[in-house]
């Protein structure tokens, strides 16, 4: 193991297919047209000295170290900005060049501290390297001239320090902020010798900076440096792994010192992120060693007892005996399990296997129930696959981007940055969102249309878009005729052409001006490659599945499925939510979305698993909780999931949990659900195990063990222990063996193995004999289901609607710095950006209620009530309020209701009728919560117990 140093080619690769041959220092090299001389040299291992060039950024030509001589040309052109030409003869090393380069370095060092030995970048500094490369031996200017050595440090960002005294003004940070991240927070202030990097005249924290780390990554010196490196020093080896936050699935190099993470650096070869990162993956990994990590198994006979730390054997033995006791007493179906979208594919697979084979029922479900279950259902019904159609890179070919119910710059920041890059290149943008998300107007990006619809009217909006396409003659007729089922198509066209779906007719429902909607539909249908990206703002509705089908209809009718730059793409929330669904986490499906009632499929599992399996679907999470309240469901094994915070109508959730006799929680923290648990099994973070995650583009990437499990066992091992204790043997020696079993049992994974992923870097399923290298774009030669099927998508308004008592509509979402229930990010410095959940309320509604910015307000629905602080903003429309659900103390989900999607039970988080009023105290629920939390998290002191 050693530190991985990626080759920096200096300038980005040229996309051209046309090749030219030139000569560099007498060696012939053939590269694509448009390649820089610098990159061409790097391709044959010739390193031209450089400081301002790096291959993640467009060439800039400022440092003047990379000057070369070219036969027949005047002067000494910069190799980074000079494109290759056929027959060119380049010299990279001559006496003249050596003198010029030494001259440049002499200038740099005349304004640079001479503290290399005590500098945080010592050993990882390009300036230091270049001084060595050019043979700088003296600085004849001395060090007494004008300089910036007294420039003060900016330590306002919790994760990195800006030390301008070390800055060489190469602008790499500024350019990274612009080109890679697209935030434009940094600039060069002043000019000439006074030129200085500036976060816009303020400090980093107060600036527009989103702390993505791109500037730190780009900095060739110690000017922008991770605090963790300043504190710890350089790492000694790297472990390439996959981020455990959102569904983008960024590749990272965990840079380690022994078993200690020094920093997480985005991996250039990560196919999902191409070397970019966000504040969470890049910096917010401190939770993995947070003092609140639970490292010992614990048990208790009832939840009012304090926890007792016990051995793994005792905890596992207790859990197994309780599950067997409950099944003996209440029946085989009285227990179940919940898989985790935070855990690996292999771990998820084992949990559902344990439930189906070990528990002997199909009572397994996963958190995708509450997020993207409508995606699986809707896309499967129309296209034939329960997943998005594209890879992320596809967005770079899109001409029109329709973002609906998603906030990628906050929730999927690395993909959001890529999308913004494409938009800056000129792609057109339509945003359909009740809230004015940042994407609507952000530096150098402005939506052509922001369709600010009312919450709950997605289906009406999508139908109207399709109506315009069909009635204005914008249908991709040849595509539809070739690719879609003719009968269904005709039926749907008749349906959608009905005037009741016209923009004018639905204007009252959606609140979107008909003219805007028509214009947006025309743009989508006629603007070239049109791509849909959507999030939970689509799925978490009573008609979530219908809306997914509506998008599929729209994409099909315009011929926007099956090629680069188009498609229908869910932005999936969690690191492995795609994978947990793929792995058979739903009660009705085995791996690869095959129904449990399918005899042939079931038999294949029975043969390998050596058991008899049930052919009827088991219980979904809401059914389990209902059954618990009814007294028929008594035991639950939950791996890495916190339903007592994340699921809607918490009062109902906790009532169900409290009614159970054995709840086994496996988690890295004593989460909210653990308050209702009887057995606690300490979990392992993503740094502590091998396995794979599958991201939103169906990409299976390696997760690698960087340190041993802090609590002895990785999660997959703990599940094996439980299974073995229950009498169903599981004896995998390594997660790769689990993947081999998955591949054997799952046609879409048939070509997947750890060895193959290692070889290819990552694999997008389906991967099998037909697609041995995986499938970046789906449905290329036709839909997976055969012919595309238009689904009838009648708009049915939700029953949740504003009333005199609850006149406002609450919708919920996330913000950049926090992640979901916040279990991880709340235990990092990310809290400095977002300490508490806030209620966004429009100035109209605030004024009417006498609410000022920062006031405590009560947020109440028919389900419950909580108190939080108000943020008065016109980002939300009048009549709509918005909050996040990152904090258990706020518990936005106390307020959300039990309404859900008709097809999948995905909760209607996005529409809750509420009232907001000024308050000066916590809600009753919050008081009860505080008391309960206090009582149920006690751990008995082993010394006192004796």
């Amino acid at each position, binding site marked *: 193991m050693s530190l991985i140093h990626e080759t920096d080619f200096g300038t980005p690769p040229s996309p051209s297919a046309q090749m030219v041959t030139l000569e560099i220092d007498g060696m012939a090299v053939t590269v694509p047209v448009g390649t820089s001389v610098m990159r061409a040299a790097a391709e044959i291992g010739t390193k031209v000295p450089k400081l301002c060039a790096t291959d993640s950024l467009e060439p800039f030509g400022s440092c003047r170290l990379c000057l070369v001589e070219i036969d027949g040309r005047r002067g000494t052109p910069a190799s980074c900005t000079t494109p290759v030409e056929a027959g060119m003869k380049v010299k990279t090393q001559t006496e003249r060049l050596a003198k010029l380069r030494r*001259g440049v370095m002499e200038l*740099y060092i005349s304004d640079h501290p001479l503290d290399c030995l005590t500098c945080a970048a010592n050993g990882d500094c390009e300036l230091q390297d270049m001084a060595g490369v050019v043979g700088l031996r003296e600085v004849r*200017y001395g060090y007494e001239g004008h300089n910036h050595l007294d420039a003060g440090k900016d330590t306002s960002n919790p994760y990195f320090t800006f030390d301008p005294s070390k800055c060489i003004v190469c602008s790499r940070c500024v350019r990274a902020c612009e080109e890679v991240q697209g935030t434009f927070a940094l600039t060069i202030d002043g000019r000439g*010798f006074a*030129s200085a990097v500036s976060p816009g005249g303020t400090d980093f924290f107060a600036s527009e900076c989103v702390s993505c780390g791109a500037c730190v990554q780009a900095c060739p010196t110690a000017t922008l440096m991770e605090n963790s490196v300043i504190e710890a020093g350089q790492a000694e080896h790297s472990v390439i792994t996959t981020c455990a936050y959102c569904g983008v699935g960024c590749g990272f190099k965990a840079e380690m010192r022994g078993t200690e993470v020094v920093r997480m650096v985005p991996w250039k070869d990560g196919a999902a992120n191409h070397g970019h990162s966000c504040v969470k993956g890049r910096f917010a990994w401190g939770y993995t060693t947070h003092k609140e990590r639970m490292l010992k198994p614990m048990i208790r006979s009832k939840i009012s007892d304090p926890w007792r730390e016990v051995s793994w054997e005792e905890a596992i033995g207790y859990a197994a005996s309780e599950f067997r006791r409950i099944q003996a007493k209440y029946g085989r179906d009285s227990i179940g399990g919940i898989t985790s979208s935070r855990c690996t594919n292999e771990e998820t697979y084992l949990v559902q296997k344990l439930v189906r084979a070990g528990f002997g029922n199909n009572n397994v479900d996963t958190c995708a129930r509450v997020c993207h279950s409508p995606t699986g259902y809707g896309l499967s019904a129309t296209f034939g696959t329960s997943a998005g159609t594209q890879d992320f890179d596809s967005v770079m070919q899109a001409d029109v981007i329709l973002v609906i119910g998603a906030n990628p710059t906050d929730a999927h920041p690395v993909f959001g940055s890529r999308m913004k890059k494409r938009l800056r290149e000129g792609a057109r943008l339509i945003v359909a969102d009740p809230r004015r998300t940042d994407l609507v107007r952000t530096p150098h990006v402005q939506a052509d249309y922001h369709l600010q619809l009312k919450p709950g009217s997605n289906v009406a909006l999508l139908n109207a878009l399709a109506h315009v396409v069909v009635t204005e003659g914008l249908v991709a007729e040849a595509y539809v005729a070739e690719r879609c089922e003719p009968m269904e198509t005709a039926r749907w066209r008749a349906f959608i052409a009905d005037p009741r779906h016209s923009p004018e007719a639905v204007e009252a429902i959606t609140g979107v001006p008909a003219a805007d909607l028509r214009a947006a539909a025309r743009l989508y249908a006629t603007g070239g490659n049109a791509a849909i990206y959507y999030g939970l703002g689509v799925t978490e509705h009573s008609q979530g599945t219908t809306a997914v089908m509506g998008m599929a209809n729209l994409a099909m009718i315009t011929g926007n499925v099956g090629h680069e730059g188009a498609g229908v793409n869910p932005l999936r929330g969690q690191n492995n939510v795609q994978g947990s669904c793929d792995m058979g986490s739903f009660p009705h499906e085995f791996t690869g979305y095959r129904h449990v009632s399918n005899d042939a499929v079931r038999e294949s599992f029975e043969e390998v698993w050596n058991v008899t399996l049930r052919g009827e679907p088991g219980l979904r999470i809401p059914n389990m909780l209902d059954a618990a309240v009814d007294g028929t469901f008594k035991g639950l094994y939950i791996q890495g999931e916190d339903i007592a915070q994340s699921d809607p109508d918490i009062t109902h959730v906790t009532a169900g949990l409290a009614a159970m006799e054995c709840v086994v929680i496996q988690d890295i923290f004593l989460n909210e659900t653990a308050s209702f648990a009887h057995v606690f099994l300490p979990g392992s973070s993503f740094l502590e195990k091998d396995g794979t995650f599958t991201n939103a583009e169906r990409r299976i990437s390696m997760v690698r063990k960087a340190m041993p499990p802090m609590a002895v066992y990785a999660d997959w091992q703990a599940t094996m222990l439980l299974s073995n204790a229950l009498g169903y043997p599981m004896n995998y020696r390594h997660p790769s063996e689990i993947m081999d079993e998955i591949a054997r049992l799952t046609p879409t994974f048939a070509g997947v193995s750890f060895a193959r992923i290692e070889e290819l870097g990552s694999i997008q399923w389906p991967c099998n004999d037909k697609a041995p290298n995986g499938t970046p774009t789906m449905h290329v030669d036709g839909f997976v289901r055969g012919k595309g099927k238009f689904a009838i998508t009648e708009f049915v308004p939700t029953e949740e609607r504003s009333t005199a008592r609850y006149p406002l509509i609450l919708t919920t979402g996330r913000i950049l710095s926090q992640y979901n229930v916040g279990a991880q990010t709340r235990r990092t410095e990310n809290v400095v950006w977002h300490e508490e959940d806030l209620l966004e309320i429009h100035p109209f509604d605030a004024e009417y209620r006498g609410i000022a910015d920062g006031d405590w307000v009560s947020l109440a629905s028919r389900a419950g009530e909580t108190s939080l602080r108000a943020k008065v903003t016109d980002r939300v429309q009048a009549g709509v309020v918005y909050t996040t659900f990152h904090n258990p103390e706020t518990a936005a989900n106390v307020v959300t209701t039990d309404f859900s999607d008709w097809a999948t039970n995905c909760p209607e988080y996005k529409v809750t009728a509420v009232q907001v009023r000024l308050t000066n105290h916590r809600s009753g629920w919050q008081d009860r919560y505080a008391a309960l939390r206090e009582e149920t998290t006690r751990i008995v002191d082993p010394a006192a117990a004796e």
Partner: protein
Amino acid sequence: MNVRVFVPIDAAALSVGAERVAVAIAREAVARGVAIDLVRNGSRGLFWLEPLVEVETPAGRIAYGPVTPGDVAGLFDAGFLGGGAHALALGPTEEIDYLKRQERLTFARCGIVDPLSLDDYRAHGGWKGLETALTLTGAEIVEQVTQAGLRGRGGAGFPTGIKWRTVLNAPADQKYVVCNADEGDSGTFADRMLMEGDPYSLIEGMAIAAIAVGATRGFVYIRSEYPHAFKTFSAAIDRATAAGLIGASVMGTGPAFHLEARLGAGAYICGEETSLLESLEGKRGLVRFKPPLPAIEGLFGKPTVVNNLVSLATVPVIFEKGWQAYRDFGMGRSRGTLPIQLAGNVKRGGLIERAFGITLRELIEDYGQGTASGRPFRAVQVGGPLGAYFPESLLDTPLDYEAFAAVKGMVGHGGVVVFDDQVDLAEQARFAMEFCAEESCGKCTPCRIGSTRGAEVIEQIIAGESVAKNLVLLDDLCTLMLDGSLCALGGLTPYPVLSALTHFPDDFDRSAAAPPARAAE
């Protein structure tokens, strides 16, 4: 018909009181019950005579100057409205030797016409070039400009026709013509004079350029310190557009050409063409690397003609008089005329448009009549703050791009700044570095850090510290800046420094016990 009286509205004339003179004349005329037409013309460019008042008489325009408000009553008394004799009378303007011996093509109308009068412009040959150009294809226009031998008057001397051809041949949905009127060189004023005195000539030239290359939009980037020029030129655009000469269709028959004036960002570097484009796009005036050339990827990434104002304003002449006629002026590969701006320590400063080939000596001694201080001449800097300093021995160098290059100098934008024997060339060399440090955009290292270090090194030389070592270091630095800088600012700063070192080495020799004689005086 009323008598026409001309009082310049040119900023140089205003700076010496032309406005007060104009008011005084108007009042005096009213007081005396005399009806006059007071015309606010541009300057003739005879600056030592400003405010230069002219009266139109049957014998032609008679000049009086320099006039102060106190002279006005006396002028009326002397019957100046009829060309009467007066102590300030200079005779017929055209007969003033300084003007008479010029070859005014580009500046033919400047100071003669009412700057904003479309009638005046047309009456003096305006729009003829454009009318001719409208009968030609783009390629034909480009060919004639090439044949005329017109080279960029901004300083680089790049053949204008070749630049246009590149833009013409670059396929694009949008092309631009950009006029660089960010005239920042010390001692230069030709661009300003023309914008204030004959703005339509620039509009006409840009329209021809636009037709030639297929551009439909144009921008004039005007130095922020030129409020009068900006005002006059903006008004000229409005009038030309309202008259249908440009806008939706050039002269009603040609393609569209929309022209806008933009006020510069107040930085010398924005006169560098790529910085100028950045600034026009609303960004920091940061130099771009080339290639891509602006002719291929210029404003907003589109093919763009970027030309100096004088180059563009000369184009109508080529089409009015014919490219052969224009080419007949000049010497060698420097064809046509150059509006030379004579300034600094000189008796008669002003604008001298002459064919290439005139020597520095003729300019300084014949036109300038020697130094203003009356002290002996010592040095002249040609081509702005980045131009070389020449000693007396090089005064016979003809104004010619190649002749200047041969003596490590440059013609630049035609600025000629004269110094007497009190100049300290070591201080001037330091000033060159300081100027570069002040005006550097800060992008490339040789310019950003090098200019500051250069000033420090020269400072040490002046202080007599490690002179020999520092002279070597300065030479190395100059080589680095010449070869390594991204643009001409850093790349040309060594010119004044090295020329000072070459031609005036004594000024750098501070080892002598006694201070230099001139400093003691």
